[in-house]
């Protein structure tokens, strides 16, 4: 029975992935992509990787969904103010397409074949005895946490996690570089709807509490900084949508501090540990639990701030042409 569910889930995930690529309209693509994210999250649950499942659901179906919907609004004929231009652009694009369609197709097929070979090779060479599980289990008492995934992420492979936080910040910097940075100073637009405002106010403390819970539970079960960060980012995005853009309401230095807090403290801690004679991110076992909790909390704050800022900047970038249109 459970094998049947797994097979259905695998077929569903692949089917949805293809459908989201092949869908005719952008709206369909976006919504099938949501469904794909949820199917993938379910697949992770079936594989016993609850941490990955929560992150997948929160980021792929939640945060990316918000970004895609936002982009979709930009593409919809109602808001695009120069439709003839886009029509012309589309024509050029499609002409280009017919000419050079062969190369992408060949690349796609080659990529698929390569991917298939690599996955087959990986399945073939799954090590007996569960890979690194044994060595993680033996080192677990020294890591300061009880959950093996958190132990790997925040202690054994802390360097990777540090880089991941950096990647999110780097993405934000790229968005800043493409013109988002000065748009922080957008005048407050109050949410026109009293119901929306009330619901957002109602959900804000609950989301905060749930994020804090996920952060703390990461010590002994599925959860942790990334999941908590996404939930806290949801607060920022909701407040932004409800007419309270957080980043234009707090002072600029505070925003920058929140953005760099996680990465900065993580690195500082690593350097202090190195100065004490250990290697980078080698926590003393006595303090490991506390240090991991502090690092995770600050990382979650930074991730939340970065994701909120990514949304806020992308959201404001597309409002720029509309403003220009209204002034002319």
């Amino acid at each position: 029975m459970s094998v049947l569910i797994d097979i259905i889930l695998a077929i569903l995930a692949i089917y949805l992935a293809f459908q989201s690529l092949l869908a005719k309209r952008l709206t369909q693509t976006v919504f099938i992509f949501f469904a794909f994210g949820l199917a993938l999250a379910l697949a992770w649950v079936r594989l016993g990787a609850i941490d990955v499942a929560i992150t997948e659901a929160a980021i792929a179906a939640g945060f990316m969904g918000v970004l895609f919907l936002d982009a979709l609004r930009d593409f919809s004929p109602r808001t695009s103010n120069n439709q003839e231009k886009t029509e012309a652009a589309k024509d050029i694009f499609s002409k280009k397409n017919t000419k050079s369609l062969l190369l992408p197709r060949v690349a796609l097929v080659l990529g698929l074949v390569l991917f298939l070979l690599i996955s087959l090779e990986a399945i073939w060479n799954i090590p007996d005895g569960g890979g690194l599980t044994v060595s993680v289990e033996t080192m677990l008492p020294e890591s300061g946490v009880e959950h093996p995934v958190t132990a790997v992420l925040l202690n054994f492979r802390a360097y990777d996690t540090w880089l991941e936080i950096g990647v999110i910040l780097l993405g934000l910097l790229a968005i800043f570089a493409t013109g988002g940075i000065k748009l922080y100073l957008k005048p407050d637009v109050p949410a026109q709807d009293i119901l929306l405002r009330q619901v957002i106010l109602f959900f804000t403390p609950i989301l905060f509490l749930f994020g804090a819970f996920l952060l703390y539970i990461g010590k002994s079960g599925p959860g942790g900084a990334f999941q908590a960060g996404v939930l806290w980012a949801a607060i920022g995005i909701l407040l932004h949508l409800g007419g309270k853009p957080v980043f234009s309401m707090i002072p600029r230095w505070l925003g920058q501090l929140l953005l760099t807090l996680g990465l900065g403290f993580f690195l500082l801690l690593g350097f202090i540990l190195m100065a004490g004679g250990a290697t980078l991110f080698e926590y003393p076992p006595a303090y490991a639990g506390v240090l991991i909790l502090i690092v995770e909390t600050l990382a979650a704050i930074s991730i939340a701030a970065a994701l909120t800022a990514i949304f806020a900047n992308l959201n404001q970038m597309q409002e720029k042409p509309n403003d220009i249109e209204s002034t002319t």
Partner: protein
Amino acid sequence: MMIKEVITVILLVVGCFFFLAGTLGVLRFPDLFSRLHALTKADNLGLGFIAAAMALHIGSPWAALKIFSIWFFTLLASSTSCYLIARFQKEKDQPTDRKEVE
């Protein structure tokens, strides 16, 4: 024990029926408002039945509380988004409405 399982299965089947009805409504109904109605009402009810079945299946009051809070938050979020989508559609149909008020 046996009765509990039977009730769980019945609740699950009823929940699935409402989900099916809601999906059918989304696929078959002609306009956005009736589709929204089918989706939010039927799905919320279906989720409620499934939540009840799961709570009964697990059988601990703490888990039941968690499951029903999930249902409650989903109820709140889906009815709000239903309202917002419906309002958006209404404004699209009658664009003068809001501007006259302002």
